[in-house]
């Protein structure tokens, strides 16, 4: 007997057995709708967890345990950053400075003739230092939108950096890619704020000279640094600051090495700030072991802000777990309901199966016919369930995230999700159908008909 006869007969049966198929369809529709909603939320929250982990990592704090603890050197900071455990590193170096030729915004006239004098006059207080020389990673500074506004005048930086920096998207502060920073590329170059440039009548290409205070064997010494201005960024007007060097517009921004290398061996004074982000909080112990072996003093503790990380990622992870549990429960419920309904439907169809077998139809063909019928109903209900589930996913997700105090998540059904749901529906229908059919068709046709009678 040709297989297409069994399939043709099955398709005709869909319309002949309207009531039964509508009942089956409604059940399938409800299950698929719930599956779509559950799976969409599960996938969306899973993606967000991954994105959160990738974006925020887990910040490591290197905290001195005693006041006398020596700071982390620039070499150490760089060595620590070369770890496989890290998602990202942000290193900057800074030191306070003054200038004989430049004025700082908000600088008290006559109060800062000399850092050494100032320190002596004001009991070691360095607040009379006029400016701060900060060495960071230019590309990061720009990419993370740390500058108050766009660069207006960049002469020596490469063109692509200028073009990207000037794009409106960058102005909005998004993470537009910026050419990666290379050590030594910007040696002794700097950028300054427009307010600072205006005050000192500076332009791109000008050379400036600042004096920084460094300690050598407990004595403060001044070191002169010459820099070339390669860019001026538009800055917001300055607010009032207790000390002029605290004003961000007074920061002379150079690259990390320019600032770090001012400090020679045996000197201190350059503050190195490094922020390390782990790929995941679980890597903390491994990272600590690695940086201890690279020379981190026992006077420093190595910790992560796990609570903060959990606060951020936790609600989404919870939603992910809840939706997975919901999916599994639904799957189990779906299997049970579909199995029950199919068994009842096939018991009701025992007579029909008996007749078809008596007419010479093979067991496999009977099963195929019933499967085609169920699959066809399932396919129609799948389409309707996808539609309904898609409409329900977003409000359900919003409610759950609002309850967990997290940000709203955009929920959508990917083709893969749709395929997964369809596979689940077909598997459910097939398992239920085949179990029942195999139970019935193991008998000779006459026994099936007599049992039914």
């Amino acid at each position, binding site marked *: *007997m*040709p297989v297409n*006869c069994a399939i*043709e*007969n099955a398709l*005709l*049966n869909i319309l*002949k*057995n309207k009531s039964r198929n509508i009942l089956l369809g409604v059940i399938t529709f409800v299950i698929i709708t719930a599956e779509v909603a559950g799976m969409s939320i599960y996938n969306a929250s899973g993606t967000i967890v991954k994105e959160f982990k990738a974006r925020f990592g887990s910040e490591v704090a290197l905290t001195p345990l005693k006041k006398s603890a020596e700071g982390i050197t620039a070499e150490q900071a760089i060595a620590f950053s070369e770890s496989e455990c890290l998602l990202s590193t942000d290193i900057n170096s800074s030191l306070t400075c003054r200038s004989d030729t430049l004025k700082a915004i908000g600088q008290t006239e006559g109060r800062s003739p000399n850092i050494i004098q100032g320190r002596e006059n004001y009991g070691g207080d360095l607040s009379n230092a006029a400016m701060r020389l900060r060495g960071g990673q230019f590309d990061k500074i720009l990419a993370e939108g740390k500058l108050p506004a766009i660069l207006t005048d960049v002469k020596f930086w490469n063109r692509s950096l200028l073009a990207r920096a000037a794009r409106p998207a960058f102005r909005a502060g998004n993470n537009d890619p910026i050419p990666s920073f290379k050590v030594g590329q910007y040696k002794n170059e700097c950028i300054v704020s427009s307010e600072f440039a205006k005050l000192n009548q500076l332009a791109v290409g000008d050379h400036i000279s600042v004096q920084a205070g460094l300690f050598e064997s407990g004595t403060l010494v001044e070191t002169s640094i010459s820099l070339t201005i390669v860019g001026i960024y538009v800055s917001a007007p300055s607010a009032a600051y207790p000390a002029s060097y605290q004003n961000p517009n007074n920061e002379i921004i150079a690259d990390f090495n320019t600032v770090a290398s001012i400090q020679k061996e045996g000197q201190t004074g350059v503050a190195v700030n490094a922020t390390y982000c782990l790929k995941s909080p679980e890597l903390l112990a491994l990272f600590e072991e690695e940086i201890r072996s690279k020379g981190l003093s026992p006077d420093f503790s190595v910790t992560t802000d796990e609570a903060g990380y959990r606060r951020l990622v936790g609600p989404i992870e919870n939603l992910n777990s809840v939706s997975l549990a919901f999916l599994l429960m639904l799957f189990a419920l779906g299997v049970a309901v579909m199995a029950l309904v199919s068994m009842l439907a096939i018991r009701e169809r025992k*007579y*029909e199966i*008996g*007749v*078809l*077998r*008596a*007419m*010479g*139809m*093979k067991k496999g063909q009977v099963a195929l016919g019933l499967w085609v019928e169920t699959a066809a109903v399932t396919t129609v209900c799948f389409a309707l369930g996808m539609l309904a589930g898609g409409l329900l996913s977003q409000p359900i997700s919003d409610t759950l995230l609002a309850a967990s105090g997290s940000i709203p998540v955009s929920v959508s059904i990917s083709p893969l999700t749709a395929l997964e749901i369809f596979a689940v529906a077909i598997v459910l229908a097939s398992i239920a159908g085949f179990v029942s059919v195999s139970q019935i068709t193991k008998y*000779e*046709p*006459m*026994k099936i*008909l007599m049992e039914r*009678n």
Partner: protein
Amino acid sequence: MSVLELENVSYAYEGSSKAVFSDVTLSFEAGKAYAIAGKSGSGKSTLLHLLGGLDVATRGRVSYGGESLADMNRNRYRARNAGIIFQGLNLLTNASALENIVLSMRISGMKGPGLKAKALELLARVGISPEKASRKILKLSGGEQQRIAIARALAHNPDLIAADEPTGNLDKDTEYKILKIFEDLAHKEGKCVIIATHSKRVTAIADEIWTVDKGVFRSVPTKRN
């Protein structure tokens, strides 16, 4: 020449120690009509089920064309070689008369665009009009359903026709017409027709009559003989 043979066949229902019949040996030839007569519950239908490949003997051998039914593909046998008319008719009630016939043809492997026409022709032969042929089975009378069951058994042109009380629901005129069909099938078309019946009118067309009582089969003389 024997088409079907039973050699020392016994049958007992599953879970029952009492045999419906034991050690039955019978032989059926092509071109002959056989009547199996006996009281209700004597085992007539069970015998037909064994002959139609719907069930297997507990003991002994039922063979078709020399090959044991127990060893052969009984799906194929039922689809192509045997046409069975059930006492309970066993028609597909959610389908029309025509669909029942066409499906039987297709299960047997018959193909082509002419199946519907052939089915309608067959239905006309048993007295079912094209209008009634398109009706659902449950919208037809008992007599009409019985004639459709007969047409379905003949749909795939089988060598063996096993009929269980095929005229039970028919009026005299229709019974006569149907019996004429059976007679022609045996004598003109060379089929082997085996009919389980209570009716003397049916036994009247038989070439051989077997009575069954308490599981014992006996040959009785026919009017023809």
